[in-house]
């Protein structure tokens, strides 16, 4: 049994900027390996969400039925669910579609013909609104920012692991 903290990251409807900011930890990623093990992530080659996750950092809005299933699954399997970046917290850019009807949005993008995402199919159906995580599940912590910069992410992870409670304060919680 490893005593390292088991961290997962997920990418829903967002630009991946939060994950890029995570990679901006640069040499601190080596240090992170001493503290934590990344057990599931877009950068980890694993198809199924494993059990026994300690911290799940989730980027992006919940935009499709598949993402909603994954969110509920990871909520069951993770001790702490963290809304990682503005999209996961406020809806941010993906939520621009919310004021209008979903079907009109799909038509505007794909024209007449086949509308992927309208019904469940090869691609999952698109939900009526692109909503932040707390619209569906309990969220334990929030890391604001579009994207949150690497220092902010690092402080969050280190304080959570070493002090048991993440401590972001002042400018570290600014949106945008």
């Amino acid at each position: 049994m490893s005593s390292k903290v088991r961290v997962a990251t997920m990418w829903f409807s967002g630009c991946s900027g939060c994950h890029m900011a995570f990679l901006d930890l640069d040499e601190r990623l080596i240090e992170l390996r001493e503290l934590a093990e990344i057990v599931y992530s877009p950068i980890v080659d694993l198809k199924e969400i494993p059990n026994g996750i300690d911290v799940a950092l989730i980027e992006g809005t919940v935009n499709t039925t598949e993402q909603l299933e994954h969110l509920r699954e990871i909520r069951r399997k993770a001790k702490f669910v963290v809304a990682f970046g503005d999209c996961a917290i406020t809806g941010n850019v993906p939520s621009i579609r919310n004021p209008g009807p979903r079907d009109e949005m799909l038509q505007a993008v794909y024209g007449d013909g086949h509308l992927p995402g309208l019904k469940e199919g090869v691609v999952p159906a698109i939900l009526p609104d692109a909503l932040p995580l707390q619209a569906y599940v309990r969220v334990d912590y929030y890391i604001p920012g579009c994207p949150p910069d690497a220092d902010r992410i690092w402080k969050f992870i280190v304080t959570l692991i070493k002090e048991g409670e993440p401590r972001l304060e002042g400018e570290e919680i600014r949106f945008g």
Partner: protein
Amino acid sequence: MITLKLDGQEVQARKGQTILEVAMENGIRIPTLCYLEGLSPKGTCRLCLVEVTNWNGKLVPACVTPVEEGLEVITRSERLDQIRRTILEMLFLERNHICSFCVSNGHCELQDLAVELGMDHVTFPYRYPGLDMDLSHEGFGLDHNRCVVCSRCIRACSEVEGAFTWGFQGRGVGTMVAIDLGVPWGLSETCTSCGKCVQACPTGALFEKGVATAAQLKSPEIIREVTERRPRVF
């Protein structure tokens, strides 16, 4: 002179001063949004609510409440923090305040308040209303999505510029700022294009055309400077 207590500390005030003015003179910070030095206070945003101990803990907006002899005012408490944060959450969820591509990102009073009050998320559902922009004026734009209905533009226009271009239309959550009883800004017959409304606006709702994301710097203090040199008529 009037003597009152702010957070237990005795302070002196002049008759007619508000609790907010006395607090500012004594270096006590009370969060504000609709208040702007140089304009008449309106008490619409409710962020400056303070607790008056000897009025049974009643909450009053500091910006419009005149001081009284013997008043005991609390400006910071867990209860006030909680109430102010809830009010701020309501302001955020009411319209589409998407900071990441706002002209005022990084220079926005609403965003600053979230930092100050420690608001890292909104606990209530967002409304995501469908709102328009008015880009008909040659120099300025209006984005209703980012408006907090504080009326600073309306007051700057009527009280300082004397043009009375801006007003409110609608009721409750549907209240919108409007130009000349509802015409596009570019067709206004009263607007002098002075830009005071833009400078007074606390968010990215009013902006100068052509500025990019995060590039809209504003100087709301010009309202105070103008009124110091040229006192308001009313």
